[in-house]
């Protein structure tokens, strides 16, 4: 019978129906970091539990890790304590860790794919809501809390309810200057920040089919901002090509057998969906948020709605009917698990090259991983950014959630390639975040205000 990837993967990982009515689901890959795991390890110790499958959990440091002054011990004593706790926990329980000084360190959702740990057909869990990112490979990936991190460590399982599946087709071609970020912001705007509650989002259609894995990761990453706990793209040739040769991907004949299995778990052409939605890629414009949740966005050419949420308008200091275009910015942040990958840095560098950041703007580029950092440096991108007046930082989550010293001050306005414009998200209770694509952030950094990146692209020879 025709079925969706979600159900095929779910069924292959279902251990049993629990007496509570939930399903016991085996988790194929567990990723942990320094912020949501220490209490889970404490709970294990308290109960005398072991880690059931230590070779199916991998760890790195990303949330609190400084992006400057990375020598150990960190000057930030809490960053040092949390990093040291993860190092001790991984040592005690036999878990592979890429700590701050490792060449593989980076944001957990960036290094999983980079290392080939993330593969189609897996169930994946991580104590971070942006775990949905891994769905770009055709995995079912759940963000969980710390008690569930404990459950996965102890049993390699979660107690969960299945989700419904909404197919989202994005057909047609994206215009120049329009990126995956604009697609997902548009989807969230149309379906709402709670439109996905109860659903996994399956993204498809010709625009998604043409996307690279990095672009698909940007889309799946923000599924959670639309309320969908998981989002995925069916694995295809692009997926297989991305995985070939990665350190943890199967190799040789195993790779071919893996491809056969990966193909088999993709949604069937006639798979039944609980809901379907379609978008025209050609109608999507560069998109920017004006409010305090990721659904409150406009196309760059549009005005903020006259009936825009009053709390959001007041917090952001926008008037109804105003344009976001032309809003002066104080800070520009390029990075995060949403848009901290090599192609994001390449697009931003294309805009930044030969220009200079406006004098009143503090601009940061934070690569998503040390691997991306090295790849960008090999291409000279770091020099493009430095010459243009951006700071080139070490890998981590940085100003996406401001757990380290990278944060907004007072009511600063930040053009940000991250995923959340919640009140206080970037470290100042009154700080203001405008979400947009990395290219749009670079353009805003140079102009000193929000601009339509397409006007700058016109000046760049193809």
């Amino acid at each position, binding site marked *: 019978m025709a079925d969706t990837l979600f159900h095929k993967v779910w069924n292959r*990982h279902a*251990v*049993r129906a*629990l*007496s*509570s*009515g*939930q399903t*016991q689901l*085996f988790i*194929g890959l567990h990723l942990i970091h320094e912020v*949501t795991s*220490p*209490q889970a390890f*404490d*709970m294990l110790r308290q*109960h005398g*539990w072991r880690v*059931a499958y230590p070779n199916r959990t991998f760890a790195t440091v990303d*949330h609190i890790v400084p992006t400057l002054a990375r020598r150990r011990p960190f000057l930030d004593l809490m960053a040092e304590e*949390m990093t040291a706790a993860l190092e001790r926990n991984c040592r005690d329980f036999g878990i592979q860790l890429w700590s701050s000084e490792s060449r593989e360190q980076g944001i957990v959702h960036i290094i999983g794919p980079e290392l080939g740990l993330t*593969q189609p*057909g897996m169930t994946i869990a991580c*104590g*971070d*809501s942006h775990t949905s990112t891994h769905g770009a490979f055709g995995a079912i990936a759940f*963000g969980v*809390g*710390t*008690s*569930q991190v404990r*459950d996965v460590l*102890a*049993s*390699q*399982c979660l*107690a969960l*309810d299945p989700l419904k599946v909404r197919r989202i087709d994005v057909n047609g071609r994206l215009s120049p200057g329009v990126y995956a970020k604009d697609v997902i912001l548009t989807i969230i705007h149309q379906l709402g*920040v*709670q439109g996905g*509650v109860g659903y996994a989002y399956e993204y498809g259609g010709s625009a998604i089919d043409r996307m690279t894995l990095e672009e698909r990761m940007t889309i799946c990453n923000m599924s*959670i*901002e639309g*309320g969908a*706990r998981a989002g995925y793209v069916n694995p295809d040739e692009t997926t297989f090509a991305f995985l070939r040769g990665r350190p943890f991907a*199967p190799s040789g004949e*195993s790779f071919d057998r*893996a491809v056969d*299995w990966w193909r088999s778990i993709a949604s069937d052409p006639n798979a039944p969906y609980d809901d379907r939605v379609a978008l025209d890629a050609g109608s999507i414009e560069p998109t920017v948020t004006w409010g305090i*949740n990721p659904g409150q966005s406009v196309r760059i050419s549009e005005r903020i709605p006259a009936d825009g949420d009053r709390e959001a308008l007041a917090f952001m200091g926008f008037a109804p009917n105003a344009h976001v275009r032309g809003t002066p910015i104080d800070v520009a942040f390029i990075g995060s698990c949403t848009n901290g990958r090599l192609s994001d840095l390449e697009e931003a560098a294309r805009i930044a090259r030969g220009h200079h950041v406006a004098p009143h703007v503090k601009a940061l580029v934070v690569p998503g991983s040390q691997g991306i950092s090295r790849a960008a440096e090999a291409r000279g991108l770091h020099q493009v950014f430095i010459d243009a007046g951006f700071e080139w930082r070490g890998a981590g989550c940085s100003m996406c*959630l*401001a*757990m380290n010293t990278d944060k907004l001050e007072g009511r600063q306005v930040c053009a940000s390639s991250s995923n*959340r414009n*919640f*009140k*206080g998200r970037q*470290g100042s*209770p*009154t700080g203001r975040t405008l979400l947009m694509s990395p290219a749009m952030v670079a353009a805003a950094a140079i102009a000193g205000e929000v601009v339509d990146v397409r006007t700058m692209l016109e000046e760049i020879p193809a």
Partner: protein
Amino acid sequence: MTASPAGPILAVAGRGLPLRGHDIDTDRIMPARFLRSVTFEGLEQHLFEDDRAADPRHPFNDERYAGAAILIVNANFGCGSSREHAPQGLAQSGIRAIVGESFSEIFQGNAAILGVPCFAADPLSLDRLQTLVEHTPAVTIDAHVDTGVISAGPLRFTAAVPPALRDAFISGQWNPTAMLLDRFDEVRLVADRLPYVSGF
């Protein structure tokens, strides 16, 4: 670590705390700087810290609601970050049930595992309940997990805890680790059948 209640949770009774607004995210419930710790201790002191500083009349500043056991919210409560620190802080402050229009699934799961059921109700009933508690903070609310019936003073309406979570509360299995470790041979069977576990 929270000393969570153990055993079946059939009903929660207590005073209410009305918190109006849609899409209240976990960054607002527990700002990220309070995640800078290797324990969950003391989180209850920082609930809505920035919202409370910005608004002296924030319900979490209102002494009339001190000691409340039931938080009454609106739609999409707990959206955003999966940080368990948010429901941990609420549980540590004495909140033992949340009634709202809808909840982020991650938040709802995190709350459940701490023994805090989230009840979904219709907006009109919620508005009435919030208004009642705003006028009569001392009113006792009874929330029944099995039937979903919520009553307070003259109000009585039906709300829903998702069936599997409801049954977990009723059977006392809302903290599932022991259940997940039971019959572990079945876990191994499933794992061994997965091609990526056996190396293709």
